[in-house]
């Protein structure tokens, strides 16, 4: 390539030279002297440099050459101003890096199709309450699935799957442990179109066979060491022999993450035999069928189904895209959080670009002379703009390259630390689409920060610029106004981000500091699951729990301990409440709000939940004594307003209505807990507590308060329980604080990230202001030198600089407040106990911003006021 070009250059020179000689010879023939002829020929030829450039243009590939020239010129220019270059590249690296990292999340959660065969046609059918369309969707029944499967035309495949199922005890593969085996229909895997890594997935023949399972990759590795011999082997789930038919590949993921394997729902499964079993129905739409059309069809089928329990009065089916539901189920605020944070990081990048545009504008004033010289030597305006844009591109590409490294690091840490649950499907990664985004970001940012300065700089007035010295060049009024506007915009955008960060931080702090009604310090919990086959009778379970508690109570490090069927902050509603002498409330999401919790007699004492009225459970509340219940204040507020609940009789009609009436013997204070579908709140679930002896579930949590902060006693307790029965699986030990902070993980991470973005924005805005002010000082140093020499006070310059700084800051704050007020409405659902227009937050962050910019101004003004008049005058 190079030799080709050199040869061409030489030939062109030779060609032009021979033309010149011929011309000169001709002119000489017509009577001119040799010198005159030479001169006339040169004049006839014109600007040889320009001709060469134009000819080169015709060769093609010239742009590459020119580009290389521009790049090397730009690189040289940058090495001359290493400080400026470093600031710009760092700004871009941070801005582009943060944006790339956020985009990789956006891509994984919102954009990239699920890694299934026909992701755009995969849907899930839920049911939702007609009376309250905004309430979260609920499961379908197995009968609905059967009706839709036989009656609908819209779907290529339908399969039920459910996570409203209990864990099962796995035996015969190491120590007994509880696993979640998700029951799914026969078409589940073929609907998703994912091939197994090993063996096969379910097929119709399996419906007539016994229990069959497909394993998740990680479960296969952990339990079977990744042996291929696992195919055809039997594993025991609740003592059922299940044959392993296949293993899914490592990248296969479905909701929920806890599912370690999938079991097939056969006609003899519990789920299929009870038509009311709660399942989700997953479906593959036929090509060309819209969600609306399919929804109309299943709604019609639902209405016409005579066996339907609810007759279509209370609920109706609704269809959602699968990807959207994955995100929603994983975190109801996930999509919004991701969008808000991506918006925020775009602001940061925009501020970064404004800042660089600002710095470049400042620099272009100093470069005016250089550009004027180049223009005088024949560089066209387009060429000058191209040169300046090439410089911008060189900066942005370098910044983007560093930014990609930053994003890779950030994504790596995100995946290692795993701070929040992420939806199944696409792991967050800096993949090709993300890199393509970053590449376009590099070009976009270069245009954003490079175009205006390049345009301005190319409009040089030659004579003026050449005459002016570097120190008197001011860049003109328009350029100065532009730079001021840029700084105001930077301040405004960073204020908006600060407001958002302030609101989110306050929200999570307030949410975290709400007293939940039980002190969580040193509280440790572990789940215990009694095998159903060995503990079929209630009294067997009750006896085991009593024995386990007796042993735990003897341990020296345990202050108090108890059993509960659900952890505090996890008492979920879902039942209707029947009160003796009152009609059963009609079915609605609001009425289905009562939770039932079985607790041992020491529960309230161990948790520190006070008994307000009546009594706590006693050891005498055994299986033979009258059925009793304790209710919480939330239940009293809702169902016994202005009545005395003590002595009243209640029951939870679902799922079994033949249960005995329960007499209320006490009222306890509320425990606040998670509201899964409204994550930015705590909920006081109306709860009915039952003595564990009268209603012993097969799965409970042992909760205890340790004397020290360590979870060490848990190991001792595990050993003690193993001596009672070593076939009883004990799940993961966790502290209640861990449980609570997991519930706060989304709001917490959101606030931290937004605060980091806002901090970065503030820093950039401060740098921008500093740069504009220092230029102002540079321009007026001479003037002030003269003035001081004539006896003016130093404070004059100081005042001028501070006045300018404050003016820009306050204009920025005013504009920023307007932006903030128009945007914070978007994050209303992410806030807790603070309004989007909270005046204290607005005032607080404005003050913070003003202080930071004042500091920047002050540092600069101090430097400026030390100007020595003599030095300033010597500039001339």
């Amino acid at each position, binding site marked *: 390539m190079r030799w080709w070009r050199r040869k061409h250059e030489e030939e062109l020179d030779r060609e032009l030279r021979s*033309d010149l000689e011929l011309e000169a010879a001709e002119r000489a023939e017509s009577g001119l002297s040799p010198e005159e002829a030479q001169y006339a020929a040169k004049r006839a030829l014109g600007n040889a440099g320009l001709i060469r450039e134009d000819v080169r243009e015709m060769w093609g590939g010239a742009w590459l050459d020119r580009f290389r020239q521009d790049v090397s010129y730009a690189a040289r220019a940058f090495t001359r101003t290493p400080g400026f270059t470093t600031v710009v590249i760092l700004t871009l690296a941070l801005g582009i890096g943060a944006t790339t990292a956020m985009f990789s999340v956006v891509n994984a959660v919102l954009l990239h199709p699920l890694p299934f065969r026909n992701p755009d046609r995969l849907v899930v059918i839920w049911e939702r309450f007609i009376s309250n369309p905004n309430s979260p969707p609920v499961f379908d029944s197995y009968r609905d699935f059967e009706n839709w499967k036989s009656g609908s035309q819209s779907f290529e495949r339908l399969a039920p799957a459910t996570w409203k199922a209990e864990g099962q005890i796995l035996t015969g593969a190491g120590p007994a442990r509880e696993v979640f085996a998700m029951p799914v229909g026969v078409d589940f895997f073929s609907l998703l179109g994912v091939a197994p890594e090993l063996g096969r997935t379910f097929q119709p023949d399996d419906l007539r066979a016994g229990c069959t399972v497909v394993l998740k990759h990680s479960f296969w590795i952990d339990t079977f060491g990744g042996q291929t011999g696992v195919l055809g082997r039997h594993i025991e789930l609740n003592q059922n022999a299940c044959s392993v038919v296949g293993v899914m590949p490592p990248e296969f993921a479905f909701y929920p993450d806890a599912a370690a394997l999938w079991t097939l729902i056969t006609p003899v499964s519990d789920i299929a035999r009870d038509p009311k079993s709660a399942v989700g129905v997953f479906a593959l739409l036929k090509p060309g069928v819209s969600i609306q059309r399919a929804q109309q069809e299943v709604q019609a089928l639902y209405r016409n189904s005579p066996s339907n329990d609810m007759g279509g009065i209370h609920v109706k089916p609704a269809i959602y895209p699968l990807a959207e539901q994955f995100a929603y189920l994983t975190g109801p605020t996930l999509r919004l959080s991701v969008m808000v944070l991506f918006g925020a990081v775009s602001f940061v990048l925009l501020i970064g670009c404004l800042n660089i545009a600002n710095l470049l504008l400042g620099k272009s004033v100093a470069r005016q002379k250089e550009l004027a010289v180049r223009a005088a030597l024949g560089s066209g305006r387009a060429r000058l703009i191209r040169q300046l844009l090439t410089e911008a591109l060189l900066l942005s590409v370098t910044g983007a390259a560093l930014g990609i490294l930053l994003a890779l690091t950030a994504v790596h840490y995100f995946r290692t630390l795993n701070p929040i649950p992420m939806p199944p499907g696409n792991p967050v990664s800096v993949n090709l689409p993300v890199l393509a985004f970053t590449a376009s970001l590099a070009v976009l940012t270069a245009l954003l920060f490079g175009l205006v300065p390049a345009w301005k700089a190319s409009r040089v007035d*030659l004579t003026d610029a050449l005459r002016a010295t570097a120190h008197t060049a001011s860049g003109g009024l328009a350029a100065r106004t532009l730079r001021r506007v840029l700084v105001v915009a930077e301040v405004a955008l960073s204020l908006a981000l600060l407001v958002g960060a302030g609101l989110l931080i306050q929200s999570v702090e307030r949410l975290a500091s709400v007293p939940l009604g039980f002190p969580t310090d040193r509280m440790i919990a572990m789940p215990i699951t009694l095998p159903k086959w060995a503990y079929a009778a209630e009294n067997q379970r009750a006896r085991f729990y009593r024995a386990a508690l007796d042993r735990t109570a003897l341990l020296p490090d345990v202050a108090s301990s108890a059993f509960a069927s659900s952890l505090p902050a996890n008492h979920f509603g879902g039942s209707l409440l029947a009160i003796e002498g009152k009609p059963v409330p009609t079915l609605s999401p609001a009425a289905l709000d009562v939770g039932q919790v079985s607790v041992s007699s020491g529960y309230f004492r161990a948790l520190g939940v006070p008994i307000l009225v009546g009594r706590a459970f006693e050891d005498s509340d055994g299986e033979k004594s009258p059925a009793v219940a304790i209710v919480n204040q939330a239940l009293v507020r809702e169902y016994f307003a202005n009545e005395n609940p003590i002595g009243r009789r209640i029951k939870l009609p679902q799922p079994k209505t033949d249960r005995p009436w329960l007499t209320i013997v006490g009222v306890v204070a509320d425990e606040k807990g998670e509201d899964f579908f409204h994550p930015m709140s705590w909920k006081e679930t109306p709860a009915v507590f039952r003595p564990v002896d009268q209603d012993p579930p097969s799965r409970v949590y042992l909760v205890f308060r340790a004397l020290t902060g360590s979870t060490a006693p848990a190991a001792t307790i595990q050993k003690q329980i193993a001596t009672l029965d070593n076939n009883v699986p004990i799940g993961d030990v966790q502290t209640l604080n861990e449980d609570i902070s997991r519930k706060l993980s989304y709001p917490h991470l959101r606030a931290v990230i937004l605060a980091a973005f806002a901090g970065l924005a503030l820093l950039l805005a401060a740098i921008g202001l500093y740069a504009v002010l220092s230029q102002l000082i540079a321009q007026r140093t001479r003037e002030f030198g003269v003035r001081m020499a004539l006896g003016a006070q130093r404070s004059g310059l100081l005042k001028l600089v501070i006045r300018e700084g404050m003016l820009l800051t306050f204009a920025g704050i005013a504009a920023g407040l307007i932006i903030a007020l128009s945007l914070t409405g978007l994050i209303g659902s992410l806030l807790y106990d603070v309004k989007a227009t909270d005046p204290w937050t607005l005032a607080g962050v404005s003050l913070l911003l003003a202080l930071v910019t004042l500091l920047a101004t002050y540092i600069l003004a101090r430097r400026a006021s030390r100007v020595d008049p003599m030095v300033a005058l010597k500039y001339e």
Partner: protein
Amino acid sequence: MSSVPKKAERIELLQGTLDMLILRTLLLGPSHGHQIGKHIQRTTDDLLQVQHGSLYPALHRLERKGWIASKWETAPDRNREFKYYRLTAAGRKRLLKEESKWKQMARAVAQIMWPAEEG
């Protein structure tokens, strides 16, 4: 700066026409750049002055398009080499096309400018 005509304008002004004139000149036989320029100038009684700044880029462009080819050859009357351009087969076709286009254009312009002569 402003006295130098913009490159874009120069090319717009001359491109199509100059290309055709160069091709037509080469129809007479291979010539080097200087000869082509002089030929156009002399044939039109100095009416058309071909600027070097237009001629050489045009020659290189035509060569790149494959309409003309070049070779360094010794001139018959002088003892030195010149870069001779000659018309290729593709160039001949191109010339015919350009010519008929130009004729059409000239007729169309004439119809507007001197309608009486047509009637």
